[in-house]
């Protein structure tokens, strides 16, 4: 059974079997506006919480998306290379950014559930 967590940087993580699928929230994609390019990470890259994992580029600006926890990239969403607008149209579904194998599952305790995130964005 997958559990979904949220960060104050407007990312979501769906965790199942020690692997997290990570994306940005609908609120975040709305703030960024139409995306035109997503710089994806390489598989096998090891990230520490707070490292830049992905750069999303809108018409106007580039924004970093940070690793919400420590871990190793197992897959990047290659579909976004040809259709970055999937992040706008399906931020919490087909517009996922990367999957990572968690280094320390206890870090998840510091994240928010959906109710807390909704309160966070007001």
């Amino acid at each position, binding site marked *: 059974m997958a559990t979904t967590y949220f960060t104050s940087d407007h990312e979501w993580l769906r965790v199942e079997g020690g692997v997290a699928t990570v994306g940005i929230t609908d609120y975040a994609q709305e703030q960024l506006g*139409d995306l*035109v*390019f997503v*710089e994806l990470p390489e598989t096998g890259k090891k990230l520490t919480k707070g490292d830049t994992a992905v750069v999303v580029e*809108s*018409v*106007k*600006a*580039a924004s970093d998306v940070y690793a919400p926890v420590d871990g190793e990239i197992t897959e990047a969403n290659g579909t976004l*290379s040809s259709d970055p607008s999937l992040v706008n149209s399906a931020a919490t579904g087909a517009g996922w950014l990367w999957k990572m194998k968690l280094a320390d599952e206890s870090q998840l305790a510091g994240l928010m559930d959906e109710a807390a995130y909704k309160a966070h964005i007001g």
Partner: protein
Amino acid sequence: MTGDDTRHLPLEDIHVAAGARFGAFAGWSMPLTYPAGVMKEHLHTREQAGLFDISHMKLFEVSGPEAVALLNRACPLDAGALQISQSKLSFFLNEAGGILDDLIVTRLGDSRFMVVANAGNAVADEKHLRALAADFDARVEPLDRVFLAIQGPEAWAALSRAGIETGSLLFMHGVEPRKNWFMSRSGYTGEDGFEIGLSEADARDLVAKLLGDERVLWIGLAARDSLRLEAGLCLHGQDITPETDPASAALMWAIPKDIRASGAFIGADALRAAVERGPAQKRVGLKPEGRRPVRGGAALFDADGNPAGQVTSGGFGPSAGHPVAMGYVSTPLAKPGTRVFADVRGMKIPVDISSLPFTPHRYRKG
């Protein structure tokens, strides 16, 4: 500038009601996007008509027996050669020939002109022009106006339906169709269109009529920026600054030949010297390879890795369908087709020097 000094558009309530997302620009709180989003807003302007609130820009009326002489001193311009209703792009230059601001000057009468200045420079421009006016029998009057732009192939038809006939008005001409109105056929998108300065009350009435037309959509500053970048038009403070002169900015076309040779405008000597030397760098269009945008501030390198210049504006061109940018490169590299490389987060992205504009201008010239 602190938040307390932020200036607000007179029609802000209308933008709030339209669902605008606001951001700071040149000291103003400006609508950046509306619910349609930058991509749709951009394309809609090219396909139909976009309505922009550009009241952050400033209109000055310059009048008096020596108005022509004042403008000829302030700008590399032959103000007396302008036909009545003719507009011209010009500049305020500093003594070194650097661009303090770019402006549109329109002749309204024998000794009456309208000057439209950029938001970020409006205060400095007024001070500059007033100081110069002390030596002339001329008046400089900042006007309190709402300033709207309507741009796109359907702009004239939407204005017509709103009761404003634009008929014989051609690109880069301006008139006063009603009391305290100034309307020019110009804009900053590369499309046919109009800029209209008018009172707040008249503006509210006109906006209501225009928005009742299904061809007209509010367009925010984000799309205004992508439209002007595709059209190859400069943003002062980014693409042209007090450190760049019209020769390096590839804007000498705006300065009449005899004025280049013998004009007595501020910065004339320095500009003549710069033209004689030849600029070390030139402003060019830049087309990044692939889909990754290259942004203003990115450094450019030649094929051997030597510094070659810098990007001054960059983003994605929704109509072009690829990233677009402009910037400065060393003059020998400033030829369309030359390949340079932009540093983006440590990666070297191939970028080709490109002619401007990226999307063809569609002005109504006659």
